């Protein structure tokens, strides 16, 4: 996708709609306004589906914990398969997360 760090090498492609996707990547904290929509998008994604939470914000809310608009981590709304900590994670850390996810998929997670 970008010149230096490329996950298309693993056969991962961007899709314009959750209906065409297998993996959802959540990168930000879930706001109260967005929670319902996240759930809806998750339901729209066909099975089997996997969720990656990238960054401290999506795992727990990170620095945004205790802000009035923020619900917290995404795992309060939908199940998460792989957590990638960091704020923000290095691109290679995200790739490491992708590899972890592939491991999980091949093992039948």
């Amino acid at each position, binding site marked *: *996708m*970008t*010149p*230096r*760090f490329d996950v298309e090498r693993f056969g991962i492609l*961007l*899709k*314009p*709609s*959750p209906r*065409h*996707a297998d*993996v*959802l*990547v*959540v*990168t*930000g*904290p*879930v*706001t109260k*306004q*967005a929670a319902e*929509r*996240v759930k809806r*998008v*998750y339901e729209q*994604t066909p099975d089997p589906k996997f*969720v990656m939470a*990238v*960054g401290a*914000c*999506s795992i727990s809310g*990170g*620095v*945004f914990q*205790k*802000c*009035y*608009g*923020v619900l917290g981590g*995404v795992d309060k709304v939908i199940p998460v398969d792989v957590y990638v900590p960091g*704020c*923000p*994670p*290095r*691109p290679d850390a*995200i790739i490491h997360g992708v590899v972890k996810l592939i491991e999980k998929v091949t093992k039948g997670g």
Partner: protein
Amino acid sequence: MTTVNVIVGPVHPALHEPERFVFKVDGEVVVDVEPRIGYVHRGIEKALTERTFTQGLYLIERICGICNVAHTLTAVQAIEDAFGVEPPKRAKYLRTVVHELNRIHSHLLLLGVTCELIGFDTLFMLIWRDREAVMDVIEMVTGNRVTSAYNIIGGVRRNIRDHEVSEIKKVLGTIAERVKEYKKVFAEDPTIRARLAGAGRLSRAKALALGAVGPTARGSGVKVDVRAEEPYAAFDEVPFNVVVYEEEDSWARLMVRVDETLESIRIVEECLNKMPSGPVKVPIPEVAPRSSEGFSVIEAPRGELIHHVYTREGDDKPLRYRVRTPTYANIPSACEMLKGGYIADIPVALVSLDPCFSCTDRVALVDVGTGKRVSIDLRTLARRYKK
């Protein structure tokens, strides 16, 4: 005349960020624009008054991932203003270096995104390749690629070492060469000119009246650059040129950024050459030493950024913290420049603003509606995290 409402956003491939615009169109021509922002609003200003000054700094840093250095720099300057402390000179130079490195990477990012948007993928890849080198330098100096956590109240966190100085100079030397090459492409390539010239017009008078900032204003011939007008950090001692283009369109705004990247590279080199010796931080009090207010205005990559803070004596939290980000100031101009244009020009005109709506809503590295669509998420991922 019958008009049709076209709603773009909050999740739209051309926006990359969750905002909504309602366009009233007549045929292909946009007649009126109504913005609705706030999809990622989460009350940072309120949260800041509930955290100590140092804790708040890390929240401020995450208002915007791309221009995080600009935000912390403004914050520490505003708080120093309120506290009445003066950072050491070397710290000011180091702040300038990191601030300008941040600007270089931000401008390269936007130039790349624009190229991708107009279908010029080769140039996108080339520019982003060079951007990686800048990110590496930032990581070397500060300890992280994106959120650098470098500026603190009273100075900077880390000193710079000699081998780092020579590394920065080496990297910037190659990048300067390449950017000069890209400048030729941007200036002469017929596809770029055909797509960008004339799109998203914003006249000088309108830019002034609507309070446009940064490259948006300078692309319309308004000569405002906080670095030159109200020198902060080390800008009073480092000479540089304010880039102004008179064409008033998307192309001019892009060219401003290309030229500014070159200027920034020069500023960094100048700073490194002139770097005074001495300490990089001074001790600061934990609690506010006086009831006061302070403000700081700086030129962030996207334009004028202002932080305004009220303190109360003996309190370790700010009484009120106000942030006005550049994109927020540019929204009225954005609406203006879209009026009278074609629907097809909307993405080009919007991207030429380098919109950063997270900033506007005062939130952090947030992606499009938090996982709404994979495509956009991965793109945001690419844009935001792969830096």
